[in-house]
């Protein structure tokens, strides 16, 4: 007897399930879509967003804390001592004396894991993460001698290979290699008359640093074109 009722109950439950499910689904039809129509619309990233790194050499004291903190060893810092008779200038942030002269500052973006551990120890806020993430570019494939040879260890291949001088077009820094050479990048920006990107965590502080510069453009660019569906 119970089987008899169970049979009809099964049919009824199957029917109601379909009906309830269909009604639950159709309720969503009129709602506003959740899609963000990239690239016509972009989200404005929060200040802490960890995208590409930038280093302002004017403020750097070459302490190499960032290189020490990095878990993947992608930062190269080289400096020389300032000649003894020269008075070391002070940084704006932290009023630190620039005793060392920075000669090389490179970050290998191929290795960077965007963890942000390097930004924390910087005493002068000269290394910071900017909200620029559209760094992808179409380029030709790797050169044959950059690829691992048969039987070769990774360390040997690494030593053999020059860190590739592939040209990429950064949305803010201009043409650069996969290894960001920040001395060259900032020279480039200066020659083009563009301001360095602001530090999103300390925007007012950094605005003071930028003297006699062109007004920096918006960090997150939004185009004026509408997405295909029309203005939303």
């Amino acid at each position, binding site marked *: 007897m119970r089987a008899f009722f169970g049979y009809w109950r099964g049919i009824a439950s*199957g029917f109601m399930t379909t009906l309830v499910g269909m009604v639950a689904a159709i309720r969503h039809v009129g709602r506003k879509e959740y899609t963000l129509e990239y690239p016509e619309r972009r989200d404005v990233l*929060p200040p*802490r967003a960890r995208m590409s790194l930038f280093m302002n050499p004017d403020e750097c004291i070459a302490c190499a804390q960032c290189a020490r903190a990095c*878990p993947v060893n992608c930062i190269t810092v080289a400096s020389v001592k300032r000649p003894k008779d020269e008075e070391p200038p002070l940084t704006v942030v932290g009023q630190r004396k620039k005793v060392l002269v920075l000669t090389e500052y490179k970050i290998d973006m191929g290795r960077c894991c965007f*963890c*942000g551990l390097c930004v924390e120890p910087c005493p002068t806020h000269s290394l910071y993460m900017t909200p620029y993430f559209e760094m992808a570019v179409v380029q030709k494939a790797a050169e044959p001698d950059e690829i691992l040879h048969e039987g070769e260890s990774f360390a040997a291949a690494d030593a053999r290979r020059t860190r590739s001088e592939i040209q990429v077009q950064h949305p803010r820094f201009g043409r650069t290699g996969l290894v960001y050479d920040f001395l060259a990048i900032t020279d480039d920006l200066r020659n083009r008359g563009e301001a360095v990107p602001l530090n999103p965590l300390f925007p007012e502080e950094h605005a003071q640093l930028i003297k006699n510069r062109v007004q920096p453009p918006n960090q997150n660019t939004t185009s004026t074109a509408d997405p295909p569906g029309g203005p939303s």
Partner: protein
Amino acid sequence: MPLKTEEMILNVGPQHPSTHGVLRLEVTTDGELVTSAEPTIGYLHRCFEKYAETLTYQQIIPYTDRLDYLSSMNNNFGFVVAVEKLMGIHVCERAERIRVIMAELNRIASHLMFIGSFSNDLGAMTPFLWCFRDREEILKIFEEVSGARLLYNYYRIGGLAADLTPGIEEKIYSFLNQFEAHMLELDDLFTRNAIVIARLKGVGMIPREMAIAYGLSGPMLRASGVDWDCRRDEPYSIYASLRFEVPVGGEKLGALGDCYARYLVRRAEIDQSVSLVRQCLADIPPGDVKEQVKRNVRPPVGEVYVRTENPRGEIGFYLRSDGSTKPSRVKVRAPSFCNMSVFSRISKDILVADMIAILGSVDIVLGEIDR
């Protein structure tokens, strides 16, 4: 004369239609019936444990993100608690509360991902998109607080990387308010669907003794009726002072030991995590989360093993320190690794469609299986 039949060996290869990661299953089938399914792992092995011996303790934290990449906050939590126990650091209340908020939000996000990909495996494509919309809100919250959407690197030894941003609490509240209604809609569509119940009830039964014998943990263990949750039974951080229920398979839940029980346990855990986040948000004491943070960590000689509750189960961190800034041994006891060990045992004499459902219900992440 008996007919000659062949068993077919099918390779459910490292590339899956469903988002489980790079897992290879060698499935032997006799027509429709699966006779054996052997998983092969190792496609995502990145030598984390060996490499961690060359890193300082703070540098290991971004690497722990990448173990179970769907619940980075919980991995960070486990590691950081282990180091703090080794060093005897006491973390301030504010940092503990925020840690729990982030860990529970990440649990919600991970379980949403589970529901989405599980329903996709079963053929219902809509819950995937609905769950991802809610998960997107959580990821936006995380991006605002930590700076990244998936691999957060937010916890530090002794505290957090940064405090909450102003206004984030309202955002979390408004998300939670909307979210509960969305989960009820999902229940209408998926949880109480007769076809879902028919597909999942009785499939992949793991009895209680087998669950304990194979070292299962987390929702898989609880679905089989074992009432064990690291947050309640071996409390760490402030979990001892928080009120929450632990959903366990059985009469009250409505299912025991099968795929449906595992699904229901995770679904109920979402509700519990929402309540936990609300409790923690209700009063966060003022304080400085960066006060106790130690960057140059030099723990005393010794070893520690700490287990915390990951969305997938119990993640254990074993650390052995020789007094220097770098650990001499790091070992991770990954929950998905042990959960996966039972898979070949319960995949005997089932249909292929059932095998897919079971694989989905185990909810593995290859990042932590392979490390």
